[in-house]
Structures are given as structure tokens and as C-alpha cells.
């Protein structure tokens, strides 16, 4: 127990020292390096933290494209309605279409994005997708606030990938990152209710599934035509 507290404190100190609130791109990478250096101790933290929540999700630490350190369950999932996809910035296959669809979803959500509905993109390639890389990706695609792009320790990302159901039972299929980019995992933690939408579906369809899981919405469908 004592060991874990020490770990957390050390982490916090490192991160605090980096001045998280006003991070530039260079600093983002410093956060990243600091976290990588901590990989071994991070594992211990990870293990202790999923014992502490009943959601079944690993409460691992992740870094957003804005350089914010977040806990997966506590900060991103708990009591929220969320839409989560997996991507990587170098993915040339269906990722660009998926990102375009989700941008349209964010647009359709309007003020609900970041207030009622939280959108997350988890990188499948954390070794390459540093916070700075993700920030450039977000800027290039015009991703608005309320949608966080996330990276973290590769092992933590793998845990999240499995726990969110972005995997295939066939190891050969599972080894291909692009195979995990086809789904948007959509859930409502307070209700313990989870579904999905294809990331290549019409944006209005993805929105309809989000709306199905958002108790504030009555009619789930918003036409994007006309």
C-alpha cells in the first residue's frame, strides 16, 4: 500500500513540475517521456486502481492531446454518456472516414458535445502517437473541445482495448490495428448500458445510438439530409 502511495505522489510531482495547465507541444512530449519512464511503476498503480472501481474498466492514466493527465474511469467514464473509438494518426484506411463521420457527429451534437456527451479517440499506436502528434491531428481535422484524443502506456492501451471490446478472437486478425477502427463504443456508465455503432455508419446513425443511450433525448433520430 505504502509503495503505491509513493508511486502516485512521485507521478504527481513530475507532472506538476511540468506545469500542465500551460503546456506547449514541447512540454507535451516531456509529459510523455516522464510517463514512459514511469512505465514500470505505472503498472503497479494500474493494478491497484482497477481493484478500486466496480465498473470493470481499468482506471489507467492517459494523456489527452491537450496534455491533460486523466484517469480512464474516474475522469472519462464515470457517470457519463460516452462515444469511444480507436484510431491512430498514421492510419490511412478507414480512419479518415471514421474521423470525418465523428466530426459530423460532434457537429450534430452541438452544445451537447462535452456537456452531455463525451467523445474520445484512443490511439492504437501509443508508441508513435504522442500527445503532440495527437494535438496536430486534432488541429488538422478541426476537432473541437469536448472530444479528447488519448494516448498512454502501450500496456494500458492494450488493457483498454480488450476491456472495451476492440479485439478479435483470431490472433492474426487481432494483430492488425486497422481491424479495431471500425467501431464506436457507446455507453452510459450510470446505467451500466453499452452498445456500439459502426464508425463507417452514417453520422446520423451514430448519433441515433448515442441518443438511444442519452436519457435526455426523446427522439433518437436527427436527419442529416436536406
Amino acid at each position, binding site marked *: 500500500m505504502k509503495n503505491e502511495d509513493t508511486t502516485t505522489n512521485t507521478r504527481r510531482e513530475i507532472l506538476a513540475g511540468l506545469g500542465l495547465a500551460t503546456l506547449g507541444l514541447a512540454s507535451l512530449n516531456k509529459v510523455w517521456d516522464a510517463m514512459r519512464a514511469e512505465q514500470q511503476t505505472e503498472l503497479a498503480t494500474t493494478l491497484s486502481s482497477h481493484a478500486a472501481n466496480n465498473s470493470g474498466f481499468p482506471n489507467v492514466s492517459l494523456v489527452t492531446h491537450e496534455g491533460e493527465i486523466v484517469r480512464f474511469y474516474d475522469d472519462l467514464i464515470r457517470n457519463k454518456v460516452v462515444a469511444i473509438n480507436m484510431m491512430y494518426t498514421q492510419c490511412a484506411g478507414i480512419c479518415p472516414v471514421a474521423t470525418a463521420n465523428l466530426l459530423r457527429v460532434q457537429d450534430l451534437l452541438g452544445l451537447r458535445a462535452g456537456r452531455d456527451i463525451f467523445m474520445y479517440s484512443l490511439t492504437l499506436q501509443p508508441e508513435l502517437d504522442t500527445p503532440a502528434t495527437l494535438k496536430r491531428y486534432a488541429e488538422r481535422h478541426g476537432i473541437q473541445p469536448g472530444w479528447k484524443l488519448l494516448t498512454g502506456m502501450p500496456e494500458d492501451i492494450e488493457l483498454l482495448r480488450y*476491456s472495451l471490446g476492440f479485439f478479435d478472437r483470431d490472433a492474426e486478425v487481432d494483430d492488425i490495428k486497422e481491424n479495431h477502427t471500425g467501431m464506436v463504443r457507446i455507453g452510459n456508465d450510470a*446505467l451500466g448500458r453499452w452498445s456500439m455503432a459502426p464508425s463507417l*455508419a452514417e453520422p446520423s446513425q451514430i448519433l441515433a445510438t448515442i441518443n438511444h443511450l442519452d*436519457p435526455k433525448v426523446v427522439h433518437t433520430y436527427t436527419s442529416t439530409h436536406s
Partner: protein
Amino acid sequence: MSKSSGNRQQEAQQHNPISTSRRHFFKQSLVGSTVLAAPAFIISRNSTAQTIEPELPPSPPTTPWLDELPIAIEPLAQTDLLADTSMLPQGIAHTEIGECGRNNHQHWDDFFGSPVLQPDQADLYELRAKADPQHVFHPDYPPQLMWNFEGKTQAGTPYPNPTFFARYGRPIIMRLHNELPQNHTGFGTPEISMHLHNLHTPSESDGFPGDYFSPVKSGPTLAAPGYFKDHFYPNVYAGVEEFGSIGDMREALGTLWYHDHTLDFTAPNASRGMAGFYLLFDDLDSGDEHDANPAALRLPSHPYDYPLLFQDKRFDASGIQIFNQLDPEGTLGDKITVNGKIEPVLRVARRKYRFRLLNAGPSRFYEFYLVNSANTVQKFIHISNDGNLFTAPLRNRDRIRLGVAERGDIVIDFSKYALGTELYLVNRLVQEKTRGPKNVAAPGVRVLKFIIDREPSEPDVSRVPNVLRPIRMPTADEISAAPVRRWTFSRSNGLWKINNRLVDVNSPRATITKGNTEVWELNNPSGGWSHPVHIHFEEGVILGKFVNGVQVPIPVHERGRKDVYVLGPNTMLRIFLRFRDFTGKYVMHCHNMIHEDHAMMLRWDIKA
């Protein structure tokens, strides 16, 4: 956790932090009993098989044959929906009194005159989707939550998932109330769209997946939420426009079933329950073994006509049902419930019975055998597939295989056995993944025990004639004239697809003019999985079956009409279909409900 085991784990982590962390994580998940959405399994990567195995622990053992099914079912009693004149059923959605925003009932005026339904024009029923927090699947497991379509017996007693007794030529109005708890947590969502599989039903009463509703929510194809929805079941045979009157009696279905079909949530909602039978009779299959009509078949009839609904379910260490919403391949049940009970006993009289077997999913396939206590296989008569009586009974059968949503009617003659004989229905089909079944292996799993415990109260006058129901096979000219559509069922990017596309309930992928015929080729080019494909609304006929491109004989029990077409690995089926009498939107989908939810479904429309 003891100190020493904790130390050992710490040591192991130091040696191999990454693989140990994964194992440790999934083990941690298994411990929590309050896990709602948890991936409660262990993932291990087996280097030889090259597969990833999310392993759920098996359901806790149960002591078999502790619970009994009722010796006869009780049909759903009618409700006088005309009693409250402010709440009369009507063709236009009655939104001002709380009905959801459905489309207008087609042909309402043709059936009932406009606008008010008159007494005796239709049979009137009422169901309420409700939570039962105290259902007992098995005495060894604690009472727990189940969702039901609740009806009432003749005596007014509420009971779950009742059996309809319907009759061709006699329309039904069914009022469905949604009283599921809106604050429900865990798997299942409290909106419903009740599909009646596979009545010749106008689209707005078919239970289209996008038509889900609750008092506070409405699906993408429904105009407004509501407390209830009226379904209009005309109970006409297909072919009304071609043959007049109530259609072509060769198109009759006898064993139908209803279940929730809510878009994206069919598997979890089906796992919660909410499924029952709709038995449909006519002058031929009249449901009366004493029928004086010389044309009547006089098959064994109620109370010796008994529906059996099989579902696969999984339970955690404390005996509470679980369903992993986050596993992309769902949860394969390892306990098989029969009419909601695990390993029940059915006491029967020494005479013939008609059993209507239904695989109500969500994912497991079955191959049932009837055996005695020494596991010796017993014979029965197979009379119907997917609710369609064969032209002639298949006698001396020893097995019946059912993909999800397939039905099979069989007649067992218990008069061949001595009083006190015990027989078992066993499932010999091995299945380890939701992707599809493996081999058949004896002795199998006993799921239901029959005890022949009494002589019948009267002589058994029922029979199984050598001729059952005629079939209208398409002519060679009809087949060659029919346009062909090809549908390929495949998987990519973690999703299940049809022609490489995903479900969109707002957009039809095929639009067929009413009265037309088509040939649909259903193709499963993979060796890895099976798809029980269901086409709503119309029965079809299999014209040809091809495995690995080679034509193979159509199994003898699949040579009649069907509405679920099991696409085994590397299989292609050619189906002949007629699209008749009603217009609107319907679906075709894989009835492995996990595949259906992830998004192996398409909308097709009939236009005027």
C-alpha cells in the same frame, strides 16, 4: 487474499510485468460481483492455436430436475379493449391517449370499416413488458431479474410470456404496454419493438427494429414515444391479392413467436427474456384432435400441444445472470433454459404429444435428441419446420437441429413406453463460441426430462396423417423470370456486414414492387462462422444449396417453406421469395443476435 499469495503475485509481476498484468487484470474483473459492464473474462493468447480466448468461468453447477413445468400451457386470455371508449383501438396512432407515433395501420378500413372497431370484429389482447425482480431460473440460483411480456390467464392471473392461440381469418389487435423500469441499470434497454416472427404482418405492426418505444423515447423510424403501441395482426395467409378472401392456405404458418427486436439491443434484451409463442390455427391444422371436419389433420392438440422455448444463458459465481455487453461476440450461454427454467421436468400422459421447439437465442445452436435413461436414442415424427407443416411427415427421425429462431414441431408418442418411464431431451451439438457450432457428440447435455406418469384421461384420438399441408413450389418459369439479388454475409473491421455494408434502418437496400418475386442468393464465404439468416414477413423456398461452390442436397427437413436459412461455413443458398399484399419496411438479418446487433442487418421495402 493471503499474504503469501500476494507476495507470489508480486514476484511474478517482477519477472514478467506485462503478461502478468493482463492476467491479473482480468482475474480482478472476475472477482467483483457487482460488475455491470465488465469484461469479466480472462484473456489468454494461446500461441499454438493463435486465438484469443476471453474465458468466462462456467455457470455454477445446478442439481437437475428440481423444478417442474406446468403439465399444460395456458393460452393468453383476451382483454376487452373496447370497454374504455376513450381508448379504442384505431387505424391512426392514438397519440392523444398515449400511443406511440406509429404509422397508420394498413387496410384498417378494409377489415373493420372506419373509424371505430366494432365488437366481435377482432380478437383483442393486451401484453405488458415488465420487470420481474424475483424470477427463479433454477432453485440453486437466487431469485433474480427477468423481463417479460406479461399477459393474463382466463382467471385474470398475470403470467409471463404467454402463448397466443390465433386463427386464420380472425384478426387480432394486440395492445403492448411498455412498463419496463426506465432507471434500469445493467444489460438490457427499456425500449421495445415487439416482432412477431413470421406473421404476414403489415410493416407498422411487424416490430421493425427502428420502431422501438418507451414513454420517454422513440426509435429512429418512429414519430413519437408512448406508453403503448397497438399491433394489428390480420391473420391472413400470404396471397390475399392473388387469391382473394384470406389468401392462399398453402402459405399457413402454425408456430410463430414474438420477441423484442430493439435496434442495437436485441441480444441483451432477448437475454433478459421477453419471448413467447403465437400459435396460429386454421381448418386444416385446427388445434382440435376431436375436430369433426374430415379435412382437419387432428394432430395432437391442447393440452397435448406444448411449446418449448430454449434460450442460452450465463450465470456468475453467485448464480446471477450475466451478459457481457462489451464483448464484441457477446456471451454464449452454458445453461439452457426451457420455458425460463433450467433442467426442468415435464410430466406427460401415455399418449401422443405435439411439441413445438423454438431456439430463442441469443446465440447457441442446438441438435436435440430424445434418449432414455441409458442414452439410447428414441424416434419421433418431425412435422414442421419454421412453423410450416411439411407436405408429409418425416417419420422415424432421431434428431432435430435448430439455429437461432428456427422452429421444429415434432410428435412424440409416449404410449410406446411403460408408465414411469423417464426420457430426456439432450443437446449433442458442441459449441464453444458464439460464432457457430462445432461437432455433434454423444451423450450430450440433458436439458429437459419427461416423466410418463399417467394414463390419458380419455383415448388418444389424435393422429399424424401421411399428408399434411400442400406447398406451392415456384415453377421453372417463375424461377427463371425472377430477378436475382446476391447478399454476402461477411466480417471485417470487427463488424458483421451484408455486402460489406452495415445496418441503416433509415435507408432501404432493396425496394421491391408489391406482387413481385425474386431469387435471393445468401452467401457465407467464410469457414469461421455460421449465420442463421432471417427474412421477415414472407416465407421462402430453398432452391439450391452449395458448399464450397459444390451443389449439395437440401436436407429433407429444409425442402418446405422457411424463414430462417442457416448459412453454415462456405455455404450459399438460393431462395425463392414472393413479396405480397402489404407495403412498407422490413428487415433481413443474421439471427445470431450478436451479429444482428453488430450490424449484420439490412432494411428492405415493399412499395405499391
